[in-house]
């Protein structure tokens, strides 16, 4: 068998160059700068600076508030990922069974996908408003003295609900197409073997959906870590006060609002390392056990 290949090294290099230069300009270069400035404390205008070694990092780990934000980020990411995946899966399984009017159901469920995070945040402000929000009234009827922006847990609840709501359609689309790619023959064979729908779902459908689920897991974790920024910023109206925030929002608060370039660079480097570790961990440990076919 003849192997197809390039006769010279230069053509592949030339073809790769645009992609590589984009990565270099928009990732490696700024990432390098971030690492460098994380070792300095510098005047934002660029007049004075002091080399402080790892002080920007040790100041963070010594700050109990930073650790509290890190812990909130972990819990928030776990909850958003869990709820947006499980609710989307449930909806996809149910939508898959619908025959009449299937298209309109699906379109309605996907609609939210088109909403930008800050717009989702604005809808959240109205729904969870301290004085006039219908969801606030609902929680109060349940006996919960719900006060967004005053009470830490109330605000955290709003963050999670809005973030989950915004992410469900993406997951729904992927799960639905995953379900529809399960061969008919497999489903029918399962139907003969066992009539219990729940059992068939866990034994047949769920494992066959695993590649989609794994892919979505990564997408959802990065969504919760990074893309929820717009929702959080809009909900707290730029003044977090005693409300929770995520690590990315903290980078923005210190770097862009507070002009602490060294401190916020150290925070971004920590986030970069976190994502790197997460990615390596997921691909090495989890992906091996999942079979793509």
């Amino acid at each position, binding site marked *: 068998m003849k192997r197809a290949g390039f006769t010279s090294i230069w053509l592949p290099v030339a073809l790769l160059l645009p992609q590589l230069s984009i990565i270099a300009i928009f990732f490696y270069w700024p990432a390098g700068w971030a690492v460098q400035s994380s070792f300095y*404390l*510098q*005047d*934002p*205008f*660029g*007049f*004075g*600076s*002091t080399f*402080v070694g790892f002080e920007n990092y040790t*100041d963070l780990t010594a*700050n109990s*508030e930073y650790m509290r934000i890190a812990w909130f980020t972990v819990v928030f990411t776990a909850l958003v990922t869990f709820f947006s995946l499980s609710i989307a899966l449930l909806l996809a399984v149910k939508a898959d069974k619908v025959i009449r009017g299937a298209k309109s159901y699906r379109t309605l469920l996907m609609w939210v996908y088109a909403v930008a995070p800050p717009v989702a945040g604005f809808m959240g402000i109205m729904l969870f408003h*301290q*004085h006039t929000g219908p969801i606030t009234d609902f929680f109060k009827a349940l006996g919960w003295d719900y*006060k*967004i*922006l*005053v*009470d*830490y847990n109330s605000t955290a609840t709003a963050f999670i609900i809005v973030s989950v709501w915004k992410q469900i359609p993406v997951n729904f689309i992927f799960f639905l197409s995953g379900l529809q790619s399960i061969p008919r023959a497999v489903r029918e064979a399962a139907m003969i073997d066992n009539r219990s729908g729940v059992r068939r779902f866990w034994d047949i459908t769920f494992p066959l959906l695993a590649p989609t689920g794994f892919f979505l897991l990564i997408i959802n974790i990065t969504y919760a870590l990074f893309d929820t920024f717009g929702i959080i910023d809009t909900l707290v*109206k*730029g*003044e*977090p*006060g*005693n*409300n929770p925030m995520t690590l990315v929002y903290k980078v923005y*608060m*210190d770097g*862009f*609002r*507070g*002009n*602490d370039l*060294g*401190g916020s660079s150290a925070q971004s480097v920590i986030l970069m390392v976190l994502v790197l570790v997460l990615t390596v961990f997921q691909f090495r440990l989890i992906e091996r056990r999942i079979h793509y076919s």
Partner: protein
Amino acid sequence: MNFFKLGAVAVSAVFAGQAALAETEITFWHAMGGQLGETVNQVAAGFNASQDEYKITPVFKGSYEETLTAGIAAFRAGEQPNIIQVFDAGAATVIGAQGATIPVQDLLADNGIDFDINDYIAGVRYFYADSDGKMIGMPFNSSTPIMYYNIQALEKAGVTPPATWEEFANVTAPALKEAGYIPLSQSHLPWIFTENFFSRHNLQFASSNNGYDSNDTQIMINNPAIKAHFSALVDWKEQGLFEWYGTGWGDNAKPFEDGNVAMWLGSSGSFGGLLAKDLGFDFSATMLPYWEAVTTEPTQTFIGGAALFAMSGQSAEENKAAAEFFRYLTSSDTQYFWHQATGYVPITEAAYEAAKADGHYEKFPAAEVGIQQLSLPAGEFTRGYRMGFYVQIRDVMNREYGRILTGETDVESGFATIEAESNKLLERFAKTQG
């Protein structure tokens, strides 16, 4: 030889003629959105129409923080505007970076414009000045915290606006509660109940002369008087005499505007907005109350809001244009216009006199309260504060105050945390200047 000389003269004459014809254009970055932005545009248009040598273009750059960050990025890229608006909490950053701006006092002197700091209202003079009292930034939208009240609510309760917190706690608030109102809310705990609390009682807020004399500053917030004030707030909140609706400005103003809260601590610059809202009641204002237990001679507060800074690295003609704009801006006509249109205080005595002479305060007594409060006797610690990373320090205050008021922490440990985290931030800021 003569021919060449003649030619050179002719050429320079032509160039001089052109320079006189061409307008010098300068840019002005500001953070005044909405109605305020329109008023800024009117001031700029007034300046452009007043002469034909210079033309200023105002550009809205977003919030205060966004404007400062944009200015810093532009400065580093060598594309800074001629004038930039920087807010109170960013003052240490922009003034600390000597070389980023030209002190406004020097700019005016270099361009032959008279400047006397005593022309300015007392509470306005030294906030944006250096330790020697030289004015670095030109105060622009200047405001100070005052107490607004619902006239009908107070009449219904049969009380007058309180002068002291003792009067509030013992007389005013219980009567207002009895009359079915939430007596009090406020919109900015760090500004109203911290920075201006220290000034109103002439207490030291930070070492090194409130931070003006050195970058080696420690915050002195762990003070018994302010801790007693916050303990009182917690008690009042429990007794239904005070309510806190979170850190947002508007969230705390809204219940007052809706007529549920009887008295609201806001900015003297809120006056224009309240007037335009056509509230369902009449309102007026009085000075920020003080604690008689702390002082019997309450002092002035200082200005919040923002100042204009002339950025360096511009040509002499552009600096001249910026200086001329400042001359126009500080004229009593412009200041009076600005004062009337926005509710911010006029920054010069002359403009204040003009407003008085015009009968402005007979029509709107509440519009004068801010200036009166800024003109009260000064004290050793009433000029303001100068602390680096102050945006973050305010964030720490807001966080801990919120926790105190929601019962998540107590006053003692909340203030200990603010003190420790602020001093850490100040120590870090000092290193950025090294």
